[in-house]
């Protein structure tokens, strides 16, 4: 399984902070597994992806395997 971690407002929109999806998981698989509103948000330029704690320069190149953690990171909050 791949663990998705939803940060910030995405957690509320996903209905929880984490979710499990079957491995392997790529970008098309991720978008396809989410409802269309959430998928559109995650596809926006403002949301970044980290695979096992490392930010992806190009999130569309996601390749997650069994046991991996994919974090979905909206813009951080202001002060």
């Amino acid at each position, binding site marked *: 399984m791949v663990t998705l971690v939803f940060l910030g407002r995405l*957690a509320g929109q996903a209905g929880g902070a984490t979710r499990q999806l079957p491995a392997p998981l790529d970008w098309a698989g991720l978008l396809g597994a989410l409802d269309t509103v959430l998928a559109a948000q995650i596809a926006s330029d403002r949301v970044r992806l980290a695979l096992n704690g490392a930010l992806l320069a190009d999130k569309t190149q996601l390749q997650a395997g069994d046991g991996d953690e994919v974090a979905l990171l909206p813009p951080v909050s202001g002060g």
Partner: protein
Amino acid sequence: MGADIRLLDAPFAPGAAVDAFAAAHPQAGGITSFTGQVRLDSDVLALELSHYAPLTLPGMTALGEQVLARWPLAGLLIWHRTGLMRPGEPIVLVAAAARHRRDAFQAADYAIDHLKSDAWFWKREQRADGWHWIEPREQDHADLARWRESPA
């Protein structure tokens, strides 16, 4: 010398932390510190900060190293709260100790400006009508731009 970088999930006293930090760096003539606290605002009942451990602490650590490389400091401290906070509680403390006060001021100023962009925190406020996520602020971008325009 490494920076004192901490993520704290319980309230802390900035004053005691700064006094201990100053005492630990007696060769420094000046200590500049910044405390951010939850503003007492008629609307805000509480503030919640969430973070993503694999990114947030490494981001703070990298920022600390960057600040130490840029200014000649005797010491640097960056502490940040997470979790639920009430009005008046400290959120963040940055302190820089240096031989010369200009270095201490610039280092602390830079650290707090960059903490917003280099460390990953998401905030929401509880108001009478529920919880509201806080978006990035234009002022933060302007604060960061200062450092790109004029190297310290």
